[in-house]
Structure formats: C-alpha cells, structure tokens
C-alpha cells in the first residue's frame, strides 16, 4: 500500500477542468516531483489532497485511510504537511511562535488543560521550544527567533514556512515551489534540506518549475498537462519524453 494514493481525481472550475482524472501513488520514503506548464493543475492537485479544495470526483487515501475532502486541519493532523506557493506565515507571531503553533495542535487540545497549563503541557511546550530552536538553527534563522514573522525578508519567510512544516515531524511533506523566487544560494540550501529529509526517510512531493532542482533531486517525476497526467518516470526518461517536450515547448 502506497503512503499517498490519488485515484481519478477531478476538479472543475467554471469553464475549465483543472484536474482531469489524475492517478498518483507515492510510496513511503519517495521523493517525487510534480511538474507541468503553468495552469496544468499541480497546485490544484495539492489543494485537493490537503482539503483546501473539494474534489468533484475521485478519491484520496493517506496511509490507506480515505481523506477525500477532509478539512485541512484533519489532513494536517494525520501527518501531511504542506507549504504554500505564496509564502505564508503568521505575520504577527514571532518566528519562534510560528513554529510552535505547528506542533501544538498535534498534542493535548483540551480547553481546560490549556487554560490551566498542566504540568504535562508545560513539559511538552519546553520540548517544542527546544525543537523549534533546532529547526530555526537548521534554516539559519536562529538570530530571528523573537522577530515578528512579518518583519522578515521574503527568503527568510520562505525558510520559516519550511521549518514550520517540519515542526510536527510529518510523514508526508508537500512543497509548493520551494525554489521559486529565491536566489541561487538559497536554491542550493533548499535542495540540501530536501535531500536531507529524504535521507531521513521522509516522503516528499514537490511542485517545482526549476528544472535543475527537479532533475537533480527527484527519484521520480510526474508530468501534468491540462489537468492530465501525461508522463511519469525517472528524471532521465522524462527529459527525453516526446509528450513532455511538446507540452513545454509546443509542437
């Protein structure tokens, strides 16, 4: 059984079929890239898988469990983390709190325990703070722990959002254009981060336009065009695939 299975997923918007019967299976520990021209349905597919859009047809299974059209917070709590294309942080929380908030919902959520700050919860919080500091250090934001996330630069916010997604130690990580609009040094950093996660056995799916990144790190590449899967395979085979070349460059 694959970790993530998508069966015949369909999503219509007014006048267009953004995702048109896509099947996708991601095995545990895989590093898969989703590519395709603009408007080919990659982000829409992510949004359907993570509950941000309701699919019109098809099924999504995570660890064999049906999560089709489950609310985003439910999908997140099952162990699916995602980042957003438009860099997304909580601007009025500090960088540290941005990370903490991503772990706490996976732990004790009872109103009274939280209001009274039980000893157990304070211990969990101390552990979370420690973990958050380690992750901030990993992405090079140690010095910014107490800075408001809204005051960080674009690149810093991108790194913060990435670190936040890692906070609950998710089983599956969906990254929407981690290398878009950042400088070459940071692209290399991102590549290293993703490869390291993969090395730790995490399952990663990324949507990415930067072909160097995709071809460099992916084990498998899935190509979408007009909402349909047109090719799937190793980076080498995808590079030579006639339909892929046509989709990108025209006939």
């Amino acid at each position: 059984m694959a970790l993530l299975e998508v069966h015949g997923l369909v999503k219509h918007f007014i006048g267009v079929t953004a995702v048109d019967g896509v099947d996708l299976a991601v095995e545990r520990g895989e590093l898969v890239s989703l590519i395709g021209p603009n408007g080919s349905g990659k982000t829409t597919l992510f949004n359907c898988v993570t509950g941000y859009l309701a699919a019109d047809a098809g099924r999504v299974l995570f660890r064999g469990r049906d999560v089709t059209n489950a609310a985003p917070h439910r999908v997140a709590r099952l162990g699916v983390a995602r980042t957003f294309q438009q860099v997304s942080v909580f601007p009025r929380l500090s960088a540290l709190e941005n990370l903490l908030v991503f772990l706490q919902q996976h732990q004790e959520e009872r109103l009274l325990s939280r209001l009274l700050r039980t000893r157990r919860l304070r211990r969990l919080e101390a552990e979370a703070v420690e973990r958050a500091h380690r992750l901030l250090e990993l992405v090079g934001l140690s010095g910014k722990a107490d800075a408001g996330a809204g005051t960080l630069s674009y690149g810093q916010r991108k790194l913060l959002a990435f670190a936040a997604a890692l906070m609950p130690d998710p089983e599956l990580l969906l990254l929407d254009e981690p290398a878009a609009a950042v400088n070459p040094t940071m692209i290399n950093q991102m590549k290293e981060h993703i490869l390291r996660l993969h090395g730790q056995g995490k399952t990663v799916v990324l949507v990415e336009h930067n072909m160097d990144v995709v071809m460099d790190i992916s084990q498998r590449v899935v190509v979408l065009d007009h909402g349909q899967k047109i090719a799937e395979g190793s980076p080498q085979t995808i590079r030579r695939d006639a339909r892929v070349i046509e989709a990108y460059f025209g006939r």
Partner: protein
Amino acid sequence: MRRAAIGALAAVVVSAPWLVAALVPRQQRYVLHVLIFTALFAALALSYDLVVGHVGSLSLAHPAFFGVGAYTAALLATRAGWPFLGALIGAALAAGVVAALVGVPLFRLTEHAFAVGTLGLALVASVVANNWVEVTRGPLCITEIPKPVLGVPGGPALAITTLPGHYWLALGALAAVVLLYRGLTTFRLGRAFHAVRDNEPLAGAAGIDPLKYRLLAFTIAATVAGGVGALYVHYLSVMCPEEMTVALTVNLLVIVFLGGVGSLRGVLVGAVLFTALPEVLRLAPTWRLVIYGTLLLLVVVRSPEGLESLLRRAAR
C-alpha cells in the same frame, strides 16, 4: 520595578472607595458610581476584545449577549426568586448558549457579511426587548431587582448594599475576567486564536480548526458578557431595553479600538478613559460631546493603533 508598579496600582484600585471618601467627600457617591461602571465596562470590553482582537472577527452582537444575560438575571431574580449567584450563572450560560447557537451559521459568513449578520442579531435582540412586553415589560423596564447577596443557600451570606460593596464586587468580577483573558490569549490557546486571526488557511495547515476556535472565543466572550449583564442589573436594580442598543457597540468599539485592540493594557486604559472621560466632561455640559468627539479624533489621527501603541512608544 514593574511588579512593584503593578502592586501599587492594585493597592490604589482596591482602596479607591476610601481614597474617594477622603479626597472628594461631597461627590463620593457619584465618583463611586462612575468607578463601578468603569469596572463593568472594562470587563465587558475585555470579553469583546477576545472576538475582535484575538480571533479577528468584527462582531457587533455584543449588546445582544449582554442583554440576554441582563434580562435572564433580572427575570430569574424577580420572577423566579433565584439567589444572586444562581441568577449570575444562569445569565452567563444563557448568553453563552445563544452565542453557540447563532455562531455556527454566523461564522459561515465571510468577514463583512459576518459583521452585518451580528449587527442584525443585535437589532433583533433590541426589538425583542422592546416588544416582548409579557416577558421584558418592554419600555416599562424590569424593576425592583434585588441587591446581590453572596453566598450559597444554607451557608453564610453577604449582602451587597453599599456603593463600596458594589465597587468591590465589580472589581472582583473584573479581576476574574482579566485572569480568564490572560489565560485565553497567551500560551497555546492564544497562539491558536492569533493564528486563525492572522492567516486562516495557514492555520488549517497547522492543524487548527478555524471555525472551532472562532466559536470558542465567541461563546466565551458572550458568556462573560452575559455575566456582566447580570452584575449590571443587580447593581442598578433596573433593566430597560435601551441598555442594549447599538450605542453600546459604539462604546465598546471606541474602548477596544482606541485603547488598543488585542491588548489587555490597551483595553483597560481605553475602558478607564472612555468611561470616565465623558463623566468628567459633564463639568462643561455644553461642550461635552464636542470635546469628547475632538479627543476621539485626536487619538485616531495621532495613534491609529490605539493608546496602547503610544504607551509602548513611551516605555522605550
């Protein structure tokens, strides 16, 4: 240093009735009345800020919850003969239940529609209070609401009959609301509320159910507002429909937004200033509203984020 300052402030606030008696013996009753109103308004404004400041939903329905609590307490105390604490708890629960029921459909609405929906609720509540004469007595008001008696049936009882007594009761209620407010707006609950306020889609990705947290803040805020309503009618002995009009929303908006939205200190400063100030200005009755309006404008122009941001800048 900071702790000492807070301690000194607390001492002054608690001993206010004696200070007032010593400093302005001739206006003692009037000043105490203003102080009681200030404490009750501060508690009400803090509960309101839980919704507008911490989950970022512009609700205009707070007078409705205050009114439900006030009328529930008034009716329980006069018609059913309930003791004060019973009426207080009943009032708080009634307001909380109403909020939980109307909150589910209201929070399906987007930002502006939500504000309009809550305004509608406030208007309906006000119309009901005026026209459901068999229950509320309409404009004739519910009168002869007994003074509060603290204590449980069968045990020792403490009747609140004097103005200082009412003041300390209101102050105790405010202290309880401050503690609740701090508990809700810091640590993990506060963080979840603020996440929903700052970026709802991302909050979902963090595993937070935005609707659940919005409803939680809304319901707790209404419960507190209902409790304040009960204290209010037991102090005044009267409950009339005009106590829960949209004018109350305007007052709360002024206190919260000009004091400092989402900030304990800001809302408290706002409550003191904007409850006491109109009273102080009674010394110049002709110009009262002109001066008040000008001051409001000045705050908005000079410090659009409220007095709290001025205080913060001053502390630096």
